[in-house]
């Protein structure tokens, strides 16, 4: 009898303990949710400046390849023109696809104007390297000027790029069926016009790269090796 009452008493005390279990579980879950491991992290700003420079370099190589392949079409016209034409068509296709990034950047630069540069400034103000942060603050006017010149150059690239690509597409269509000497000769004026526009695009890209390089130089800490 004594044992039974002792067991009942233990069960009662256990039940009393169990009353705390649901709230304790809720608290535990809430604490788990508040742990830093799963907390949403802040967006990371993009290194716009470095990325844009890489895109400009890529665009320069694409335009150079297209221009060289166009030259090759006229050089090979009196021999076997097919391989030269195929290389030219490939170069135009690559230009159509891979130039999207540089064209999108230049268009966004124009659309956002100074706000585009302000994003770069904010990024530079928050970089880990203290020397770079200080250099960005110190050379703010020069960086701004370089950005404005880059904007002008990108505007030039934007204006000439589309007519240049359009000429190349026309040439691709004209020479597709028969890239013989006769056809190439007939398309001579279109070829010259395309090359002229291509040179203007190259000049614009050269200016853009020069401005990006001078910005890089301004932000390079003393003693740091230049990045290739």
């Amino acid at each position, binding site marked *: 009898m004594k044992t039974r009452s002792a067991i009942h008493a233990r069960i009662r005390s256990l039940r009393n303990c169990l009353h705390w279990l649901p709230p304790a579980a809720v608290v535990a879950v809430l604490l788990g949710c508040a742990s830093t491991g799963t907390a949403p992290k802040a967006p990371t700003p993009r290194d716009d400046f470095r990325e844009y420079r890489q895109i400009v370099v890529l665009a320069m190589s694409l335009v150079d390849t297209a221009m060289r392949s166009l030259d090759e079409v006229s050089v090979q016209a009196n021999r076997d023109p097919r391989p030269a034409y195929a290389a030219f068509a490939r170069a135009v296709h690559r230009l159509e696809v891979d130039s999207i990034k540089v064209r999108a950047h230049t268009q966004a630069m124009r*659309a956002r104007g100074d706000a585009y540069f302000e994003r770069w400034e904010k990024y530079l103000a928050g970089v880990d390297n203290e020397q770079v942060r200080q250099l960005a603050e110190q050379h703010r006017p020069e960086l701004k000027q370089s950005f404005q010149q880059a904007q002008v150059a990108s505007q030039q690239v934007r204006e000439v790029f589309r007519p240049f690509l359009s000429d190349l597409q026309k040439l691709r269509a004209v020479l597709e069926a028969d890239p013989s000497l006769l056809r190439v000769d007939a398309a001579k004026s279109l070829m010259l016009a395309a090359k002229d526009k291509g040179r203007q695009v190259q000049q614009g890209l050269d200016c853009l790269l020069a401005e990006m390089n001078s910005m890089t130089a301004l932000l390079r800490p003393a003693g740091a090796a230049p990045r290739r």
Partner: protein
Amino acid sequence: MKAITKKLVLSAGLGLLVSLGALSANLVYAQAPWPFAPPTTPMAQRNAMNLVLNQVNWFQNATRTASSQSNNGYGLLTQQFQAVRDQYAGFKTTLKPQQLSLGANQLAELDAGLDIIQEAFTDYQTGMANGQSTYTALANMCRVLNQAIGVWAREFKQDCRQLRVGW
């Protein structure tokens, strides 16, 4: 006397019902204004991002099949491309102000990217006007669109990662 009391109770009850109805209508209006503001929760962002990427896949599939349907191909591609634009516009509405501000340049580039890709449709028309056959012009356009939207989608994914979309 009893009848008058009954009438009074009835009219009071009716009045109470009407006023409650009007109040609840106001409450409903306050809770769900029209047009609905899109949610900016991580789940909503992930869903919107996946919808964009799925639509890109549909569009890429369309570019693979459109060159064999010379008549309907162009129309099909324009429809699918417009659907990509619509999904992307929907995605942007799920972004938080901080993401919109920090990713303003990236979003402007993505917008510009779609505008540039759309130029391929004009190039197709120009190619035809320059004497290119429908088949070749459509095949060229399909190839350009397929790869160009691939480049765009890669940028989109990278930007989503940087902007912590869905986190």
